[in-house]
């Protein structure tokens, strides 16, 4: 059962990724990215990481990609012109892709224990504790410092966005601009 579902959603994921590259319309590409993200969420779910799966959907598919499509809609970006690309890109590009894939594949195959996890293993080892409780315990004890540092980093990004937005808005003195700025930062 796990294996069948894995193949279905891995297939969706790959198809979405390929479609993302092939489509010439920006909004279709953005939608393919959403397909990739939701299929990844299902794969997380099958590994037993239910919180990670739903966080992936809420944060990436539900918030960040909404912003992407929002921008595409606002700019009203049309169909991109398709060019064949330069000759250098074609001659160097394909061997480079093969080389990179080969490097990744060797690293994965050589790493100890990396391929040992099976789909049916799941993450919940401790009896009676959900995924969320384990995650919370780890984040607020062992990994407290990195967690707080990341929060400060995001705070800096928010402040930067507010400063940028308020500079633009100071000419018009409108509240509308500032609102849009804070809306953006809330998303990040």
């Amino acid at each position: 059962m796990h294996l069948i579902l894995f193949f279905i959603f891995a297939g969706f994921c790959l198809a979405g990724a390929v479609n993302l590259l092939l489509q010439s319309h920006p909004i279709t590409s953005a939608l393919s990215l959403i397909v990739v993200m939701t299929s990844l969420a299902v794969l997380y779910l099958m590994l037993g990481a239910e919180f990670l799966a739903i966080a992936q959907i809420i944060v990436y598919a539900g918030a960040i990609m909404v912003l992407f499509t929002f921008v595409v809609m606002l700019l009203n970006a049309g169909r991109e012109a398709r060019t064949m690309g330069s000759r250098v890109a074609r001659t160097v590009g394909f061997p480079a892709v093969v080389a990179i894939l080969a490097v990744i594949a060797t690293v994965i195959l050589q790493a100890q224990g990396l391929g040992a996890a099976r789909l049916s293993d799941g993450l919940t080892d401790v009896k009676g504790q959900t995924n969320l409780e384990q995650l919370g315990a780890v984040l607020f004890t062992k990994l407290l410092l990195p967690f707080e540092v990341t929060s400060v980093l995001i705070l800096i990004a928010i402040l930067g966005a507010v400063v940028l937005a308020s500079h633009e808005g100071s000419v018009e003195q409108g509240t509308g601009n500032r609102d849009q700025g804070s809306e953006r930062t809330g998303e990040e």
Partner: protein
Amino acid sequence: MTILQFILWSVLKVAVVTVVFLLAVAYTVLLERKLVGRIQNRWGPTRVGPFGLLQPLVDGAKSFLKEDIIPTGVYRPLYLIAPIIALGCALISIGVVPFGTPEVGPGGYVKHGELNFFQISDINIGLLVILGITSIGVYGIALAGWSSNNKYSLLGALRSSAQLVSYELALGLSLVGVVLRAGSLNLRVIVEQQATQGMLTWNIFGGMQFIAFFIYLTAAYAETNRSPFDLPEAESELTGGYHTEYSSMKFAMFFMAEYANMITVGCVATLLFLGGWTSPFGDLIPSFENVFVDAGLSLFWFVLKVFSFLFLYVWVRGTLPRFRYDQLMNFGWRWLMPLAILNIVATSALLAYR
């Protein structure tokens, strides 16, 4: 239980819940028309059937039979898929809602973990699934507006996306207090935690979450694009908003999605703040020790609570005027969000020093 039995039971439950849910959606429309009629001192629909009770069915038939017009300028694939996304997301999120007591199953009383009648799937992250699927539902509206190639549609879609993204934060934050009290995201656990003393331990009264309840209610009105936050379809400004170019059944799908979302929001509010399927009297009325009576009573309380929410929805619509756009954004960001964060801090402090 074998995997085949599980699949069969799931399919059966999904089919029954979908049919009942769609019927409920249809009759919510009638409820709204009747109530708004009474609020505005007129009768509402009375002609079709006794008291106009057959009106939703006739409306549905009319939507099916209308000509389906696809304007030439639209971006076809997205124009066609947008109503499906909207309605699909609205229907999926009901799958984690427990409608009645989980102790009743095919073999009479069942223990936890066995098959029960009143919930399609009992999962650890039920609350987050509802939030996640609601956030996906934005795409239906956004894509509908964009692909219609119409300025009114696009403006409606932009307003709607901005509104949904803004109020989603306040909505999510207002639920944190409840989750803190229950210590779980599982909807069944949240209800059982409130149900110990009946009405006194409901999150809205005994749990001191009335501020969170107010924030949730306001944000939920905005999330479902309902009055007083119905800017995405403000007919006096945008003709119809994001569904201006839609006709026939495609329009009806957006319409159904809106009312389905209303019901889901009512269900979530019932589960999180009003004790779900449990009786408000707690143990004052002893258990009847009868499977049918228990199942029926739990369903009755649940439906009554959800109904009172729908009533409130319509009442608010009939009473309050529409917000202006900047007022809407100010209210969401400068009032609701800080208030929700304060509520989290206060609830955590209360739980820590109790």
